[in-house]
Every structure is written in structure tokens, then in C-alpha cells.
């Protein structure tokens, strides 16, 4: 039985569709109004469970899930010791630095950066030898520069419409983001054939 951590939300549903199209169906996950947390199809040898997107990597890292769907943003931020088996090419977006329209960087001052992703921000500015002060927030990051809490933000940008609506614009792109299929390292040793089959089926379904 292969345990799969799926991120709740649109990305998880898309990933589930890919897995089901690849032959790993699970009818009970579609039962309306179900309050179950774990769904399995013994015939296919697969068990799915929905988790908070930022927790999917933890489930895989700790071996509660053999494989999982995790955004590259989470992988970059937390660096979990897992295998990254393939780029699913879905949930595409960018990790960007954004600032109020017309913003000009003053390199004589410490840059105040608001973000949900302090590690990504830290690494990005370390490469530039830029002294920064990180304000760790958990949501509504766009608000920070508007209220003077930060100079810039480091956040995920999908369409840019939230930035545009708040008179913010992208200053630079740090990295492109998409969903990845990840696997627990120990599971890969003992369930290599099953995980390999799922990975190949997913890849074939993506092309």
C-alpha cells in the first residue's frame, strides 16, 4: 500500500486527477459529504489523505506518507530531506520580490522584507550581499509595504492581480515554482517498485 499526501485545494485536486488518470483511482474520495480523512483503494494499493499544503512535506519526511505532492516553494523554504521525483508542471507561479509602484532601492539602508518564506528571502539576499531585516508574516503579505511595515515583500505571484490591485509590482523573480512529486527516502528503499510505477504513470500522463 502506498500512502499519498495530497495538498488540500485546487492543486491537490488537480494532482489527484492526474493520479486517477494514471490508473490510481479511488471512488470513495469522491463521495459527497464524506467526513472520512483517509481514502483507499486496496485493488490499486493506494491510500490518499488530504493535508494542509505546507504539511505535505512533513508527512512525507516523517514517513507517514510514502509520496506526496508538494509545492517547490515549500521544498525551498524547509529543505526537507526527501526525493524530488518529478516536476508535475502544475500550480505554476513565481517566487518574487514585489514593492510599491515606483519603488527605488536604497542600498545604504537595511532592506526590510516581509514574507512567509524567510529562508528563501534570506538565501536570495545573501547571494546579493544585501543586509536585510526579515518580518515573518503568515498572510496578507501585500499589506506590509502599504502600511510601512516593510520596504518590499517576497511572496508567491500567480497572476499578479492582487499586486496590481494594491499598486504593487514585481521587482524581480527569485525562482519559478510548480508542484513536485516527492518521496520519503526510506520508502524508496523498500517500496521502490511501487513508487517507480506510480512515478512513471504520472510522467506518462503529464506528457
Amino acid at each position, binding site marked *: 500500500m502506498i500512502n499519498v499526501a495530497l495538498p488540500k485545494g485546487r492543486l491537490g485536486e488537480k494532482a489527484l486527477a492526474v493520479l486517477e488518470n494514471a490508473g490510481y483511482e479511488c471512488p470513495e474520495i469522491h463521495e459527497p459529504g464524506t467526513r472520512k480523512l483517509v481514502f483507499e483503494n486496496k485493488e490499486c494499493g493506494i491510500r490518499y489523505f488530504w493535508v494542509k499544503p505546507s504539511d505535505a512535506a512533513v508527512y512525507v519526511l516523517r514517513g507517514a506518507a510514502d509520496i506526496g505532492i508538494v509545492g517547490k516553494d515549500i521544498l525551498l523554504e524547509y529543505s526537507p530531506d526527501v526525493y524530488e521525483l518529478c516536476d508535475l508542471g502544475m500550480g505554476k507561479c513565481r517566487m518574487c520580490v514585489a514593492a510599491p509602484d515606483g519603488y527605488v532601492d536604497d542600498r545604504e539602508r537595511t532592506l526590510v522584507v516581509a514574507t512567509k518564506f524567510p529562508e528563501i528571502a534570506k538565501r536570495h539576499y545573501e547571494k546579493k550581499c544585501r543586509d536585510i531585516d526579515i518580518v515573518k508574516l503568515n498572510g496578507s503579505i501585500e499589506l506590509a509595504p502599504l502600511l510601512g511595515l516593510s520596504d518590499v515583500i517576497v511572496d508567491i505571484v500567480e497572476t499578479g492581480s492582487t499586486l496590481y490591485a494594491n499598486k504593487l509590482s514585481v521587482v524581480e523573480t527569485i525562482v519559478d515554482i510548480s508542484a513536485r512529486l516527492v518521496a520519503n*527516502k*526510506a520508502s524508496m528503499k523498500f517500496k521502490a517498485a511501487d513508487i517507480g510505477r506510480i512515478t512513471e504513470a504520472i510522467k506518462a500522463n503529464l506528457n
Partner: protein
Amino acid sequence: MKQMNNYNELNADERITLSCRRIFEGYGYTHFKMSKFERYDLYAQNKDFLLSENIITFTDMGGKLMALKPDVTMSIIKNSDYRPGGATEKYYYNESVYRTKADTHSFGELLQTGVECIGDVGAYETAEILMMAVRCLGSVAERYVLDVSHMGVVNSLFAMIDAGDEEKRELIKCIGEKSVHGARRICDEAGVPESIKNAVATLIECSGPIAESAAILKSALSELGTLEGVDELCCLASMLSASGLHENVRLDFSVVYDRAYYNGIVFRGFVEGAPERVLSGGRYDLLLARMGKRGGGIGFAVYADSLLRLDRSRKVPHTDVLILYSEGEDVGALCAAVEGLIEEGKTVLTAKAVPERRTFGKTVRFAEGKLTEVETK
């Protein structure tokens, strides 16, 4: 008195350290006991070698900055006095180390047992270390895998890649994550020739039983000339086959360590039921050189704390006899009664009330100098 000589009576961590110790001593390794503290300077110069760069420090009475040991290998190297031509030093240890775990961000005391071989490290010594690693894994779990790779192969391939240190670090990360797509992207961006790009993909994808995979690797990389380490892997595979310990040993280049310290065989062990590696080791001649020592070095550590998670049973403490007594009884007679039972080989707990969450073979009451068995619910 009954001796604690039954292996099954030991705690899980005691069983692990005892079984590993028997293996290490079987190969002639001697115990290396060390202090819990070291001068902080020892680690400051080689922080990248440590699994976690956070170190618990304190100032001793003489004003020296000390550290609670985050690593054992460096302490053993520091004390090595190997000289070329002299005897190779072979030590084992059972020690606690103090460091943070990547996913918890808090300090912990972690029990580690392992071996270090410092001196003239040749083909036999390398095979011996791997044989011990296989035996350690086999002593704690029925299903296990030892993944082996070679930093020499990675380093000689990287020498052909014209890219900056940052890109190479990223590339190493991709190899460790088995991310072919990530490695291809970095190679594309760095303009790496197709043949080298394919070789990197081969490294990532070449995984399986060591003898077959080493042969496949040798043939797949042959167009790049002779890469350092490939022949050593093939030779190692045949030595392990000769010893009959090859079955669960696999070639897997996702085992990659810091190129500044490791230069040869590197490996990691997994057992079924543990979500992370329970053993890791490798050849670290470069660390020895950085610490001003001569010769080669190879060793591994078994992470007892990771193995303890395998034992999910919750033991209820059991004692053979519970003696209940009340205030005012003849304590001398009670002592004699307890001693008598212990001499018979029984375990005994004396208490005034029945303790919870424990089991007892029988419960007796001590009153007026006599023991009387009582019924318990």
C-alpha cells in the same frame, strides 16, 4: 543474585548498542571513550562537516569557550597519532551528541554508536567498514538497505563541468534529491555539454544491486574516460560478494556529502519502519588533512535514536513481587524479607500503596514480620 544477562531484558537502545558493540569488537575495534565537552575551536574550523551548525557552547572556569560535543569523528581524529608506516587505528564508540535536528529546530541529546578507522585505509579496510555497516543493519532489522556511492565519481564528473560553486552546490542537491529535471535545468543554464548532462542523469538514475549497477555505471560513463572511483566501486562489489554480505547493498548516488570533506566511498543505511537513514558514513581523508593529520579515514555512525522509533511497543514496567507494608512495621524484618526474595532471583518493589501503571507477578502484604499473599483486582 540473578544477573541481567538476558538480551531480551535490555532496553531497545541498550540492545542496539550491545549488538553493534559485539560486531565492532568482532572485527578487532577497541572502545574509545571521550569527554562530553570539547574546545569550541575544534568545530569552528569545520562547521560544514557537522550535520547541524548549531552548537551548545559555554565558557569554562578558565575562560575557554567549550562546546557540548555535536560530533564524535572530529574528537577521534584530534586524538589520532597515526604516522605513515604505523598501525592503523580502529576505534568504536557509544556516545551522546548534542545538536539540532533539521525538522525540529531544537537541541537534543542523541545516542550514537559507530566506528572510525584512521591510518592506512585501503581496499580491505573500506570493505571491512561496509561489512560492519551491513552487519549492524542486519542486527536491528530483518529488511534493510545499505546505499553506497562514491564522492570520487561525483568530484571527477564535476571537474568536467564548467560552472560556478553555487551551481555545483545546486547540482549536488539535485543528485541527492534524485531530481533529474532539476539537474537538467541547472546543466542547461550553465551550458553543460550533452554528454556530461547525460552522465549526471545516469548518476541519478543508476540505482540497484551494487555489482550490477557498478558495471552499468562503468559502461555508461566509459565515453568520458576513466572516472576516479568507478573501479573502486566494482572492486568493492566483488569483495562484498566474496564475503556474502552483498545482498542488501545498493549503488545509489543520492548519497552525496560535502565535497570539501569526503573523497571516496560514502554510504547510508535504512531499515524498514524507520522514515530516515539510521546509519551514515564515508571516507573523509579531506577532513583529516584539514585537521593537520596524515593518512586516510573512514567510519560510520548508527543513529540509535532513529532506531528507537522502530520499537512502538509501550512497555508496562513489571516486577515479580510487590510488598505492601504499613507504617510501624518492623523495618529490619522487612529488609530481610526483601533480601531473601532478591537472593531467590526475584525483582521486588516495596510500597505502602499499589502503584499505578505497573504489573506484578504477585502482591504480598508484610505484617507482623510475615509475608502474606493478597488477592489483587
